């Protein structure tokens, strides 16, 4: 986002308030209409319980110089998330954790007489590897007998994608890029394998739920709406509500996906790196990271995050991107197990990164507009872009110049066995792909600060600094 003042383009649907930027800082306005509910959230103990278990972002109440606007009750300054990520970028376990966090929040809310009024996956962000709810105004008063209005949204945003990733194909999480309000249940129902009907949770919350939507939902004929309203005022008791949340929770918990058999999952056992070369490369990368001293790092093509951790373990905010869901999954599982901080693994196809989507293509930022960062690690990557994907070196250099100030990049020459493997089944149409060609292309945008061959390999590791404009 370039504006340092102004409403955030994705924050416009909720009449309770909205998020805006002032002087480059993020704030949330609580509208007067939401006053009672906000006070209930704070006074009932729910806010305290959720923030102390790291389920909800904390906030401070603030006063802004332009004073109180009409219709505004309070201005709060929420805790900042260092990198915004979106559900179509999450690996399976991140998604599952986000779903379970949402349900746990709903459970705790019920204990304090409140409910979530929406269950969008965009309400969750990741902070130090853990899912955290960012929409403080998402709470509504619980009224006995009322159904959960967010049930549909939970099933479409969380349950359907998770079920599809688990039972059909892990890549189906990407469908969320196209369906901004979650995967339609009739589509999910069609794509799930027949045996999913044998799981009670999926049978109920996806298959039968989908049929119910078709039967009752979309006929906006005159009079029919009123009739349906009477049907829906059939009670959902508190116990039934608990049962619903419980059922969703166990359905989600029982969805599993284990990374195996995707192309890059076993990468590090399949590389041409000897232990010596690996050790040397790691110490070189560490040296270059220390030299560049970035505050933020993107590791592009980071695989399971071995090199990302060089940065994150130096308390540098690091995002570790890879195209392979299995690698990202392994990365994330290790992060959770070791309780690591400053690291966010995400799924990304660099040749087709997340676009800007939503209303006016402004609700969810494209990947590139969530940058630039201080430093990018581009290790064992360039040959995939230049050779496998036919992107000319000058274009690759231009891309990096827009993405970072410091660049730690590994040049992988044609004599390298991995590149020979890539060229084995195709014509070599890359006369410019040489060390000289590489240095020339990057020299347009970057100054070479350091260059070091990686011992035990044919590769060279560079530290580059973007030229001042």
């Amino acid at each position: 986002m370039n504006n340092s003042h102004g409403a955030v383009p994705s924050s416009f649907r909720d009449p309770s308030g909205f998020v805006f930027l002032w002087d480059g800082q993020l704030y949330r306005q609580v509208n007067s209409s939401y006053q009672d509910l906000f006070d209930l959230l704070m006074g009932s103990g729910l806010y305290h319980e959720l923030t102390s278990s790291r389920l909800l972002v904390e906030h401070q109440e603030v006063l802004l110089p332009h004073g109180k606007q009409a219709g505004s009750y309070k201005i709060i300054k929420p805790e900042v998330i260092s990198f915004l990520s979106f559900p179509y970028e999450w690996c399976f376990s991140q998604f599952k954790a986000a779903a379970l966090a949402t349900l746990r929040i709903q459970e705790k809310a019920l204990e304090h007489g409140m409910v979530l009024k929406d269950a969008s996956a965009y309400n969750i962000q990741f902070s130090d590897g853990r899912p955290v709810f960012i929409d403080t105004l998402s709470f509504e008063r619980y009224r006995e007998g009322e159904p959960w209005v967010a049930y549909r949204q939970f099933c479409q945003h969380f349950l359907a994608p998770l079920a599809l990733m688990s039972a059909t194909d892990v890549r189906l999480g990407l469908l969320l890029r196209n369906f901004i309000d979650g995967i339609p249940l009739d589509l999910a129902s069609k794509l799930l394998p027949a045996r999913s009907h044998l799981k009670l949770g999926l049978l109920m919350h996806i298959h039968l739920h989908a049929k119910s939507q078709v039967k009752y939902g979309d006929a906006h004929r005159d009079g029919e709406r009123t009739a349906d309203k009477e049907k829906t005022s059939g009670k959902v008791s508190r116990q039934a509500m608990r049962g619903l949340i419980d059922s969703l929770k166990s359905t989600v918990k029982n969805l599993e996906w284990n990374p195996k058999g995707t192309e890059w999952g076993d990468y590090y056992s399949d590389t041409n790196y000897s232990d010596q070369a690996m050790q040397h490369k790691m110490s070189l990368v560490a040296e270059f990271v220390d030299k560049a001293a970035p505050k933020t790092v993107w590791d592009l093509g980071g695989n399971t995050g071995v090199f990302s951790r060089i940065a994150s373990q130096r308390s540098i905010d690091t995002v570790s991107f890879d195209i392979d869901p299995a690698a990202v999954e392994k990365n994330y599982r290790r992060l959770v197990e070791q309780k690591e901080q400053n690291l966010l693994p995400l799924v990304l196809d660099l040749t087709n990164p997340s676009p800007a989507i939503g209303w006016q293509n402004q609700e969810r930022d494209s990947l590139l507009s969530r940058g630039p960062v201080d430093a990018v690690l581009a290790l064992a990557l360039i040959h995939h872009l230049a050779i496998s994907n036919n992107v000319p070196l000058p274009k690759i250099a231009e891309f990096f110049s827009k993405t970072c100030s410091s660049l730690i990049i590994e040049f992988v020459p044609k004599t390298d066995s991995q590149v020979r493997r890539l060229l084995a089944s195709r014509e070599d149409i890359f006369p410019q792909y040489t060390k000289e060609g590489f240095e020339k292309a990057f020299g347009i945008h970057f100054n070479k600060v350091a260059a070091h061959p990686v011992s035990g390999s044919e590769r060279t590791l560079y530290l580059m600094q973007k030229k001042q404009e």
Partner: protein
Amino acid sequence: MNALTFSITLAVITLVFGREAHAYLDPGTGSMVFQALIALFLGAAATGKLWWSKVKSIFSKKSDRENNE
């Protein structure tokens, strides 16, 4: 309509519309109907689970007592 009735009516209307203004999400008519349909089943399941864990805890306490005697 006297003053009391009027203010009660007003309160009810505010509550109804106030509520609707906050729950801005389209819940989906079919989803609401479906939820009401499965409500009884889910409520019974939740109660059953609670009952079963109580039964289990009674029996585990009993066996502890028996072992200690």
